């Protein structure tokens, strides 16, 4: 973690700045610290100017009229109500569903994970014999991706079964349902499911029943996921900067932007419990290996 953070901060000054209008741009952070501040710092460095930021945990933001673009960092920041007509870029907002038709202005979501095809490909590199992958999700924002995930699975020769949980309490039942059906589980960054309790249930279920589960953030790997395919906070900030610059220029930006660089983390203890050996290239690619 520390080397990754250090390298991110050292690289920001040298990163290319996009033509931007910082005076018309503002940022809202769910909390002015931790991952939110790390992502914002990367954004500001890449964007090329000082951007006004608001800490939602301290005060309600009063958005200046001249602001044309708002970048949010965190789920709470994303869920806040903003004036119409302002373009918004959502960062670190897991499970957020972006509906372009709901507002007059543009809304862009910076994805927290790589695109599903890339994620599935990486899972197959670790678990070449994978036949059936079950995706556990709950937040409505993931609903639109169900069909695309199943189609991608068919394309890669893996039966992908998205399974929507009614709520956090339904995880044990969902896991029992996966017994004998799934070879692996994948958990997207769904805030409705991902709780400390659930991660522990998942870990014990996975390790005791020999069914690997894959996560989408480094913290999931730390809690027992075999591997997680996510994106670093700095990369998210940089992707947001690129998207903001494009919006400033009036260019077309997709509803969901996938950052270029992904972050792979591995858990050696989980691999040992599950009897899986990481291939050499996967180990080389890993940004972090939990013992």
């Amino acid at each position, binding site marked *: 973690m520390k080397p990754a953070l250090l390298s991110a901060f050292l690289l920001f000054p040298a990163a290319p700045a996009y033509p931007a209008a910082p005076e018309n741009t503002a940022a809202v952070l769910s909390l002015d610290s931790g991952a939110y501040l790390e992502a914002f710092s990367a954004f500001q460095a890449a964007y090329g100017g000082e951007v006004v930021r608001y800490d939602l945990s301290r005060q309600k933001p009063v958005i200046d009229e001249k602001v044309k673009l708002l970048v949010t960092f965190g789920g709470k920041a994303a869920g806040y109500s903003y004036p119409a007509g302002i373009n918004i870029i959502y960062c670190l907002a897991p499970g957020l569903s972006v509906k372009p038709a709901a507002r007059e202005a543009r809304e862009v979501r910076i994805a927290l994970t790589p695109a599903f095809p890339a994620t599935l490909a990486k899972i197959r590199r670790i678990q070449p014999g994978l036949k059936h992958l079950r995706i556990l999700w709950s937040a409505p924002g993931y609903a639109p991706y169900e069909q695309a995930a199943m189609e991608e699975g068919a394309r890669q020769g893996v039966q992908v079964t998205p399974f929507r949980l009614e709520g*956090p*309490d339904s*995880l*044990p*039942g969902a*896991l*029992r349902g996966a*017994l004998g059906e799934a070879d692996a589980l994948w958990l997207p960054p769904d805030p409705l499911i991902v709780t400390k*309790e659930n991660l*522990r*249930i998942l870990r*014990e*279920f996975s*390790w*005791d*029943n020999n069914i690997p589960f894959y996560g989408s953030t480094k913290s999931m790997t730390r809690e027992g996921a075999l591997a997680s395919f996510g994106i670093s906070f700095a990369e998210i900030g940089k992707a947001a900067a690129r998207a903001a610059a494009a919006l400033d220029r009036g260019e077309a930006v997709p509803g969901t932007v996938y950052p270029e660089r992904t972050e792979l983390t591995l858990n050696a203890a989980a691999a040992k*419990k599950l009897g899986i050996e990481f291939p050499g290239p996967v180990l080389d690619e890993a940004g972090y290996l939990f013992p």
Partner: protein
Amino acid sequence: MKLYFKTVVFILLLIGSAFWINIHFSGVAVSEAMSAQIADSAAAAAGDLAPAFQKAFLSGKELDGIKALHAFSQKTGSVFAGLAATDGTVLAHTNVALTGTRLADPLMLKGLRTGAPHFRRLFHNGEEIVETVIPLPRQKGSSGEELLFQGPDAPGENAGFLRAGLPLTPARKAEKDITFKLLILAVLIAAAATALSTFFASVILRQVYLLKEGIRKVREGNYDFSVPVISRDELGEVAVSFNKLSRGLSETTVSKEYLDSVLESMPDPLLITDEAGNILKGNRAAAEFSGYDFLPPGSRNLRELLEPQTEGAAEPFALLSWGGHIKELDLWFKARDGKRLPVMLSAAFIGGAGGRQVVSVLKDTAQHKESEARMAQYLKEVETVNSELDAFAHTVSHDLKEPLRGIEMFSAMLLSDFGAKLDPQAGDYLSRVVKASGRMRRLIDDLLSYARVARVRNPYEYASTARLAEEAVAGLSVLIEERKAVVKVSGDLPEIFCDPVKIRQFFQNLVSNAVKYNDKPAPEIEISAERFGEYYWKFLVRDNGIGVPSQYFEEIFRMFKRLHSRQEYGGGTGAGLAIAKKIVEEHSGRIWVESEEGKGSVFYALIPADLSKKP
């Protein structure tokens, strides 16, 4: 394996077994204690979380149970935990896959049956854990009615059971520490026990070593060796018995050293071989004689060193196998320097059946052969000289007789024709001349007879000595009748291969002597014979005459030896016994006399039974 090592190995096995048993059962005991402690700690932790578990049982929600179980895991480090109803059905489990299943393993059944905590050790996912079943009592209500009917201290029912797998990792370290200390202690005890055992084994076996040394000494022939008795136990008694045995042996047995010294001091070469002729031992004389050291045993074969002296003769060892022994067999012996040495071999088997050996004695006959040749030469020279002497004596005697006959004849004529005319003194002198001439003639005749024995070689033939004796007696009939003698000739005198003329003269001379030298009115003479050994006859001529003093037993056989004056006992010349002796010796015999003065004499003559078979 040596007795000492066997004893030490036995002791080490005992110590090792005790060592292993100690470590093993101590480990088991420690393990049980640690398991119990872990189970107790888990039960205490479950007690602390009783409200959370109670809530889960009351709500029946799995997640409530899981939260409580996670809290329990957080507190105890359990690798798994589950809540089971009183029938064993899992209400919640850290492995959610087990929720709803029914636990029916022995530990769970035991817990369900007794309602008490239990534990056991097992391996879970490759890790050894303590699995425990902890009953969770149902929390009593605090309503007045419940207090009224049940009382605050009444025993309640179990709401369910906590089933948990607890890691042994912390206990393992303590277990290892305790086991290691026990191991060190056991090693020290084992080392001390081993050292003491080794020491006592050596002390106990000291007597055995002394006995072994004693047996070795006795085996080497030192029968007088005594073993020091250093213990009063059974081994000491064995040592005492051994000493008695060795003393007995030394008193009754010729020691090997003694036998060796005898063999080594023998002047003749002696070799001991096996039945195939391989030389096992040779004495010093054998080594000096042959030049071989005969080492190592079996390196030389006696059969290869011996050769017969005559072509086509039987092989010595074949003769030995056939006859059981060989005596004085003339052979050649091939010495180390290549020389062929003449030897006389005598050999015999020694030892029992199956392990027989052959003891062979070689006699160096080189000197003997040389002496024999020299002797033969001497004999030849003596024979030549004797022959010449005999011829000379015969010639001289014969030549002397002619002038003597003239002296005697003319002296007698002078005495008879002119005796009256002679002076009486002259007549006496002449008469003495006649007598002297006659005596000289008899002497010459006897001398001729003696010389004739050697000079005249009559043909040898088988002749009856009884007949020859009878003829001799007949030839002396005048003398016998005159002396009224009685001569008995035994009828069982043998037939021998001899010169009959000389044997007849032999009898005649002995009988003549026996009659002459006898002062009895009726002399008695007896001629007999008896077998002497395998090859000889012993002839006896016994008389009752005057006898011969013992100092003259040899002398009387010398020529012209007389023990009396010429006037006594017929005035013989003393040549008869000398002639008899010469005749007996010519027949390869021997003559001697045994006599007692005044009582008579017995003349013995030992003559070969059959000279025709003389080698």
